[in-house]
């Protein structure tokens, strides 16, 4: 009798706890997703609505900070009227933004592609080679990977200067390709492949090249996708390198250019912001599992 009552009580307790946790999760969730959702909804506002709501935002800068700002900013979740005019303007009438978008693509794509290609063979080497020298080298790669841009940009700039590639895209792409992040991630995963597989392949007469192509590559396919996503996000978001390597702002990727937007174009900026986050969000929707796996695998630095 008492026992069943107790059981009921604990059952109730569990339900209450779940409800409380769920409320916490919902609250946190709303906070996390709101900025992204707001950016998207605001991109569907007509210019008049944007000016009415956010006119006060840039009023100071318009007249040199002396203007009396009467209106407050009115943050709005849902546009009064759904309008695609901002997108039309971006896509058809202001090629500037599309150029900057292209700048981002042309910087990010080669970095992702070639960093992974070089990383594939380097990681294979790290997984197969043995000995102290390899360990030391891997540690050096790790340190380079962990260095912030404040440190690595100085040597990168020196090399770019020596190779005469300053102010060209190569000055960002080349150091980007050899950033050891993908090597680190892939080597960690390739190390988990049991050596008995290699032995079996060798007994069957497989050459080293075949072991790489038919055992290591297919077994780490998922890891490649994970690494590609992580390298992509970081470079799609680049700010530090273009500021230092490019003296000419026409080469800036959209990530830097978006912040230098003109006062009259806030509405456009929202649309550009959405266009800019689309590739990343798209990858997120389709590759979230890989992303999560990639992050999880990168954990535990010793590997």
């Amino acid at each position, binding site marked *: 009798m008492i026992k069943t009552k107790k059981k009921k009580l604990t059952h109730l307790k569990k339900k209450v706890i779940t409800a409380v946790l769920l409320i916490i999760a919902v609250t*946190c969730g709303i906070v996390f997703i709101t900025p992204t959702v707001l950016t998207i909804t605001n991109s569907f506002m007509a210019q008049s609505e944007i000016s009415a709501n956010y006119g006060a935002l840039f009023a100071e800068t318009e007249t040199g900070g002396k203007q009396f*700002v009467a209106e407050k900013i009115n943050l709005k979740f849902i546009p009064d009227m759904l309008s695609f005019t901002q997108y039309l303007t971006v896509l058809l009438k202001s090629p500037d933004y599309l150029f900057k978008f292209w700048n981002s693509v042309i910087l990010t794509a080669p970095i992702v592609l070639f960093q992974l290609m070089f990383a594939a063979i380097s990681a294979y080497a790290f997984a197969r*080679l*043995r000995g102290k020298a390899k360990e030391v080298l891997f540690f050096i790669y790790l340190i380079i990977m962990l260095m912030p841009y404040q440190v690595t940009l*100085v040597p990168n700039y020196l090399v770019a200067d020596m190779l005469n590639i300053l102010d060209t895209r190569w000055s960002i792409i080349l150091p980007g390709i050899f950033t050891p992040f993908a090597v680190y991630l892939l080597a960690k995963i390739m190390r*988990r492949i049991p050596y008995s597989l290699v032995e079996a392949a060798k007994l069957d007469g497989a050459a080293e090249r075949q072991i790489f192509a038919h055992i290591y590559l297919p077994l780490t396919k998922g890891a490649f996708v994970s690494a590609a996503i992580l390298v992509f996000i970081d470079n799609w978001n680049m700010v*530090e390198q273009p500021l230092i390597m490019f003296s000419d702002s026409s080469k800036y990727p959209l*990530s830097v250019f978006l912040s230098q937007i003109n006062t009259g174009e806030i509405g456009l900026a929202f649309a550009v912001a959405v266009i800019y986050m689309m590739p990343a969000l798209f990858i997120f929707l389709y590759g979230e599992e890989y992303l999560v796996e990639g992050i999880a695998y990168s*954990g535990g630095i010793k590997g």
Partner: protein
Amino acid sequence: MKKIFDLSCIFNMKIRTYAHNIKHSRLGNAVRADDTFPFLCLLPGLIGVLVFFGMPFLIVIFYSFVDNPVNKEFVFLDNYINLLRNNAFKNAAVNTFEFAVTAVPLAVVLSLFLAFLLNEKIPGVSVWRSVFLSPLMVPVASVVLIWQVVFNQNGTVNVILEHFGLTAVDWFKSDYGMIVVTLLFLWKNLGYNMVLFLAGLQQIPVDLIEVAKLEGMGSIRQFFAIKLRYLSPTILFVAIMSLINSFKVFREVYLLTGDYPYSSLYLLQHFMNNTFRTLDYQKLSSAAVIMGIVMVIIIGTLFIIENRFGHEDEND
């Protein structure tokens, strides 16, 4: 309590014998001899790393000890002394340090909390994970507009503050700036850390928790005696990653406030950018070397701590 340790010992031993068997299997030495191909694989990447990171960093160290790149006269520590006397550098270093010291622990604790939240059996776990992870994917430049709307002098936060009779704050032009930047940092990075912790939580053997429950261990004791112990390598890794990412908060600050922000928001990357403009190689190289040394010391310390306390998780 003792039982728990026995269990984890057995668990570890099993893994070790397994690893041992693989390493020393019968054929191991006979077929392993040829390392030529793996070595050739290493070369292209290694050359790239040496050309773009290794060699120039040695030059940077050299530059930090000479008077200028043309004259190349050895001046010992003069460049460093000048740098440490430079007020802009001091301001930037202090701000960056203060930010890291507050934001990194917050990022670790809050993401651990989120991971535990999602590790409970609440409905829609995968949805919440996506929601918390989504800021990682959104480019900083895309949400900067919203931050400006929210934290502007006439922005949403101030409107709310005034509604409750509080005085408005000019967030980006006051000492409160760092609070905002910390919030933006947490918004972007908590999801990443949370995933790391969720992976760490998966590593805790389920039987261990079961035994603890059977022995009547409370959930708080369980947390400190088992979960935190097993999570310690993850905690250190999250701390390192958060530290690295804390340097990237420059992106938010730069996109919000430009080249010369309010002095409380002046970070090391601002200092570097402005020094690049005058191409003062001495300042640049000595600053890079100092920061590099500090990073190596911090990361090295964390490694040593992990070696000491993270023993139990050594299973790859």
